[in-house]
C-alpha cells in the first residue's frame, strides 16, 4: 500500500471529505459566533425596551455574592434605571423536576418610599414544560398587591400562607416563579433599602 495508492484510495477520500465538512462547519460557526454575539448590555437594553417600550440609560449595580443569594433564589444582575426603578434578574429554584426559572423583576419606588412591583417578565425556564399554561392573569397578580407588600414580611406562595398565586396543573412551576419574585423582593428590602423594612 504505497503512499500513492493510499492517496487515491477510498479511505483517504473519506477522511478528506469528513475533514472538509467539519472544517467548513466549524469555521463558519466560529466566525458567525463572534459576529453575531449579543453582548450583555444589548440583552439588558432589550429587556428595558420590552418593559418600558423605549431605550433608557442604566447603571449596573455591584454587590458581593453574599447579598445576591437568599433562601428563595439568587439575583444574577441588578440595574438602577434612569427613572429610579430597579431592574433585577432573579432566578427561582425547585420548580418542576428541580428546574429553575429566570425572570426580570422591575421594582419602582412607590409614593411612601417602599418598592412596589411594576412589572414581571419571564426570561428563561429550564425543564418547565407547561409554561404555556401561564397566561397574563397569572403575572398580573404580582403587580396587584403592592399595597400589602409595602408593610413588609408578606411573600408570594403557592398555598394560602402568603399571597396565593398558583396555576392549576403546574403548581411546581408556579412555586419556582413565586420563588424568583420573592427573591427579588427579599433582595430589594434587605439590600437595596438598607434592610430597614
Amino acid at each position, binding site marked *: 500500500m504505497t503512499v500513492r495508492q493510499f492517496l487515491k484510495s477510498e479511505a483517504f477520500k*473519506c477522511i478528506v471529505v*469528513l475533514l472538509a465538512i*467539519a*472544517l467548513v*462547519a*466549524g469555521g463558519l460557526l466560529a466566525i458567525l459566533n*463572534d*459576529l453575531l454575539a449579543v453582548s450583555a448590555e444589548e440583552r439588558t437594553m432589550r429587556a428595558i425596551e420590552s418593559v418600558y417600550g423605549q431605550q433608557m440609560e442604566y447603571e449596573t449595580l455591584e454587590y458581593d455574592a453574599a447579598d445576591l443569594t437568599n433562601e428563595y433564589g439568587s439575583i444574577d444582575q441588578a440595574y438602577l434605571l434612569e427613572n429610579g426603578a430597579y431592574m433585577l434578574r432573579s432566578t427561582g429554584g425547585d420548580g418542576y423536576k428541580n428546574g429553575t426559572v429566570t425572570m426580570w423583576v422591575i421594582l419602582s419606588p412607590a409614593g411612601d418610599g417602599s418598592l412596589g412591583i411594576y412589572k414581571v417578565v419571564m426570561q428563561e425556564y429550564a425543564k418547565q414544560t407547561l409554561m404555556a399554561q401561564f397566561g397574563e392573569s397569572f403575572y398580573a397578580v404580582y403587580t396587584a398587591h403592592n399595597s400589602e407588600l409595602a408593610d413588609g414580611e408578606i411573600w408570594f406562595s403557592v398555598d394560602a400562607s402568603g399571597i396565593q398565586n398558583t396555576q392549576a396543573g403546574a403548581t411546581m412551576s408556579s412555586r419556582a416563579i413565586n420563588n424568583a419574585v420573592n427573591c427579588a423582593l427579599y433582595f430589594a428590602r434587605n439590600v437595596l433599602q438598607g434592610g430597614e423594612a
Partner: protein
Amino acid sequence: MQMIVCASVQWDKVGLVLGIIAALAVLFAVLILIVTKVCHIKEDEKVVKILEHLAGANCGGCGHTGCEGFAQCLACGKATLDDCKVTSDEEKKEIAKLIGIEFSAAEPTVAVAMCSGGVNAEDRYMYVGNDGCAYLNQYLGGVKLCKTACLGGGSCAEVCPVDAIKIKDGVAVIDKTVCISCGACMRVCPRGVIERVPAKAKVYCACSTNCKGKETMAFCKQGCIGCGLCARTCPSGAITMKDNLPVFDYSKCTGCMKCLEKCPRHVIKTM
C-alpha cells in the same frame, strides 16, 4: 464594513475552533475506517442493485424471509420475478435487465375462495373456543364434515392488508377489485381454499371437494357433485372435468355464463 467585520472576530478563537474540530474529525474518520476495514463484508454488487428496485416491503409473499433473501436468490437464478407480487412491473423490467433474463408483465391475478359451504355445510361437532381457522381446524380434521370446506374462522380477513375479505354466512368472500394478490390469505388458510385466478376471469367454481355426487350431498347443500353439465354446455370448450371438479381455461372463456345457468347446484358463481 469590512474592517468592522474583521475587528469583532477574534481570529485566535476561530483558529482554536478549527484546530479542535479538525483533530476530532480526523481522529474519528480514522477510527471509523479501522472499524469499517475490520468489519468489511463481501457484498455482491448485483444484490444491492436489485434490492434498490424491489419494493422493500419485506412482506414474505415470495416465500423468503425478506427482500434481501429474495434478491440473493434472484441474483443466482433460484427465484423468479413472478414470486414477488408487490413490486411494480417497471421495477421488474429493470431487475430483469440487471440479471439478464427476459421479462414480460405477468397476467394480473386475484385471490378467490373456492368454497360456498359455511352455513350450508354440515358441522362435525359444535366448536366452542378461540376463534380463528387454526383452532377450528385442530380436532378431527376440522369442524366441517367436508374435508376442503372453508371454516369461516376469519383468519384470512384478519391478515389481509387491504381488508378485501369479508366472512358472509360462514364463508370467506374476497372482493376482487380491492385484492392486491399478495398471498397473505393463502398462507394463513389451513384448508388451502383460497387460490389465485386471473383478474380477467368472469366465473369460478365455488367448491373444491373431490367427492362424488351422493357423498357431497350428504354434507353440503351447495357442493359440486361433479356432474360435468358445465363442461358439456360450454360453447368454447373452456371447462374440463378433473376428479369431479370443473377446471377453467380462462384464455378460452368468453364469459357467456351458460355454465352458470346450467349448473344444478348453483356452485359456479361470477367473480
